[in-house]
């Protein structure tokens, strides 16, 4: 929480990833629990802080501010960099 105070206030949050990530995934990634590779914090992707002024979308950990996920869309491809994520956990209804 504390790191947020040093960041500009035009960022949004992981809710804004729902449309872009739905271009590549059929499950809703924003409700999946992500684990930050830097500090180990877990929580729904919807709670990440998302910066849109880069060429693409940069999602940072709400706790430590480190980059968890990056998404860049060009005219013909989508690039997803997930170096900052240890796991993504999805709840699934029993078969």
């Amino acid at each position, binding site marked *: 929480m504390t790191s947020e105070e040093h960041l*500009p*206030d*035009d960022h*949004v949050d*992981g809710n804004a990833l729902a449309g872009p990530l739905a*271009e590549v995934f*059929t499950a809703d990634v*924003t409700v999946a629990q992500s684990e930050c590779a830097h500090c180990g914090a877990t929580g729904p992707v919807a709670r990440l802080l998302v910066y849109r002024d880069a060429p693409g979308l940069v999602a940072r950990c709400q706790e430590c501010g480190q980059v968890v996920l990056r998404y860049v869309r060009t005219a013909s491809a989508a690039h997803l960099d997930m170096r900052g994520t240890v796991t993504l956990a999805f709840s699934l*209804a029993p078969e």
Partner: protein
Amino acid sequence: MARATVQGRLGERLRWRTAEVVGRGSEYAEATTLMLKVPDWPGHLAGQHVDVRLTAEDGYSTQRSYSVASTPEPGYLEITVQSLPDGEVSPYLAHDMAVGDLLELRGPVGGWFVWRPEQEEPVLLVAGGSGLVPLMSMIRARGSSGGRTPFRLLYSLRSPAHGLYTKELREGLPGLDVTYLYTREAPEGAKREPGRIVPSDLVDHGWPAEFAPTCYVCGPTAFAEKASAYLVLLGHSPERVRVERFGGTGE
């Protein structure tokens, strides 16, 4: 029921759809509600949003996200657009789009900032400006599903002239309490001095943390972060405080 809406999309990649403007509603000078007919629209969950794409004749294309304002239903939705002074998309949508015009949208998307009629706990809605839009969809979804779970809405707005859905909120619904927090100019006789949201607003008009409500906070980023931090300070579990940030609005 709600699940069917989401699961209907599984296996099908999100695609752009063509929406037709079938009506316009003026909220106040800078805010307009667009009524959209969308063939094959599956309906949405209250709180979800859509991405809207506009393409110029030279091929330049840009997109923005807008929360759905209306009650979930197939084939139809409403979005409310606040025109921003230097906006690239919002002035066009708010002022220039006419009945019969077409626009591209995709969705509904976002499964986290949603309220489902089967939720039984009390609900606290905290809106900053046009952050009211997805929360209004929750209020409407509760109404149309015959819901009885108590809702409280704290709505922070500049002045009485800057209200969204004014008439509908004034008419009210049983079990819905509405509190207006005016930031610049309050109506005559108002007890609260105009000003930004403070923790005592949430104490006086929200739910005690021990009632374990789900709190939905939506608005400009600075507002949403402040209000949600206050809720956590007041003892609400961070897992029960769901936030959607709109970014800076250049207010």
